[in-house]
């Protein structure tokens, strides 16, 4: 196990080095017109972080993302548990959730904008609808695959439905639910950024779109880099916890 972990670490290091090398080569081929080198990007990001306006955009994005994630996890768990405990509803609604998962949800964004208005609540709602479905689907399958004997034990002990969820179902389903939350985290982030890119006055997504019209390559590269690093490192961390929960 220990050897395996160090192998993964080494592979990740090689991969990151490879990506930076590819980036540097691409920069040398494409040139200053449309790209910046890794070093220039990191330097510009450092400069950007010293401006106040950057922190306004960042905190706006983070606030929307955090609220969306809380809503996605709460509603996802609620939907997952209710569908998982009722066989027919689960069987009927699961395929519907799966097909909702595969539609381009961005087309629903105008509806959300019309309903919530152009502000932070529309971004939160849009981020949340991206995250709810994976959390619900993973929770549903987690509750379903719980050994029936555990539920029977609960019944024998005369636990109330809420106590059954709290004492038996939830602990047994934690690894699977965590996977759902990990996927939900990523999708909520994608949803929030996507929402900001289409219509917003604040946030990192807005900053990106604004940079196109200003033809500010430095800004585009720096913000894209920041988003990718943030998403990739949080996901790697969650993935490590996820693996430990499943095998530990």
């Amino acid at each position, binding site marked *: 196990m220990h050897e395996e972990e160090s192998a993964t670490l080494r592979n990740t290091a090689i991969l990151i080095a490879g990506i930076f090398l590819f980036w540097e080569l691409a920069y040398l081929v494409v040139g200053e017109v449309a790209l910046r080198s890794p070093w220039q990007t990191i330097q510009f990001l450092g400069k950007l972080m010293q401006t106040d306006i950057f922190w306004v955009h960042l905190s706006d994005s983070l606030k929307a993302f955090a609220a969306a994630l809380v809503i996605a996890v709460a509603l996802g768990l609620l939907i997952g548990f209710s569908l998982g405990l009722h066989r*027919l509803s689960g069987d009927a609604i699961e395929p519907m959730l799966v097909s909702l998962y595969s*539609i*381009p949800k961005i*087309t629903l964004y*105008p509806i959300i904008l019309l309903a919530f208005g152009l502000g932070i609540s529309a971004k939160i709602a849009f981020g949340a609808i991206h995250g709810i479905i994976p959390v619900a689907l993973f929770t549903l399958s987690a509750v379903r695959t719980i050994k029936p004997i555990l539920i029977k034990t609960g019944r024998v002990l005369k636990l109330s439905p809420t106590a059954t969820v709290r004492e038996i179902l939830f602990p047994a389903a934690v690894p699977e639910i965590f996977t759902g939350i990990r996927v939900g985290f990523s999708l909520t982030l994608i949803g929030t950024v996507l929402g900001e890119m289409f219509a917003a006055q604040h946030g990192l*997504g807005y900053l*990106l779109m604004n940079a196109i019209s200003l033809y500010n390559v430095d800004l585009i590269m720096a913000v894209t880099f920041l988003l990718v690093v943030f998403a*990739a490192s*949080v996901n790697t961390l969650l993935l490590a916890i996820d693996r430990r929960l499943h095998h530990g």
Partner: protein
Amino acid sequence: MSRLRLYQLAVIAGFILILEALCLAGVIDKITMPPPHIIVRDFVSMVLAGRYFDDIGKSLSNVLVAFASAYVLGIATGCILHGYKTARDILDPLFATYYAIPIFAFYPLFIIMFGLGDGPQLLIGLLLAVVAVIVTTLNGLDRVPPVLMKTARVSGLNPLQTALRVTLPFCAPYLLTAAKLALAYAFIGVIGSEFIMARSGMGYEISYAYTNFDNATMYPLILMILILSIAANSLLSHWERVLLARRGQK
């Protein structure tokens, strides 16, 4: 099974009826959303008049190009990677984290690099779809029984022949799953890009209609995209189930 279908129909019908009631009662005002029956009426008249067929055609052809290139590239990469364990181990962390990365964040960069045309949209669709195909192909190839590989070796097939005649046919169900994922991602990538910034296409027309408060255009187009993507997805899912069932019986 039929009880299940009935339940599903009831859920959809109930949802539409509630929307209709809320719209007619004025809880949802007309500026936000027209009642569902008006949307359907507008949708029918849009289709009959052939309006926006240019945009629909353009979006769909871009989706198909992105899908096809991601599919071919993904299967080829999967087959090659399968033979190189070290390369695969190095790329593994990338595959594990790939779908956590907001690929759409690269769209502005691609616009700067390639200009505001089909290129950036196709690239986003391709990037979203290709990794799902690679991972699913690898997954399928891992399950090829060693005896099949031995047979291929005994028959003196070269690597390309082995792939085309032995391993890929064995992986057919996985390749179908890959096709389903790739099509869904190509849809999301192309329509999403059009939506954010473009000069034509269904996504662009929806965002244009949104800016002009043109609900009579926006809602039917949204309905169109939902129908197209759900239909494509259900068709491939159905085919996948048929293929899996046939394998299971053998």
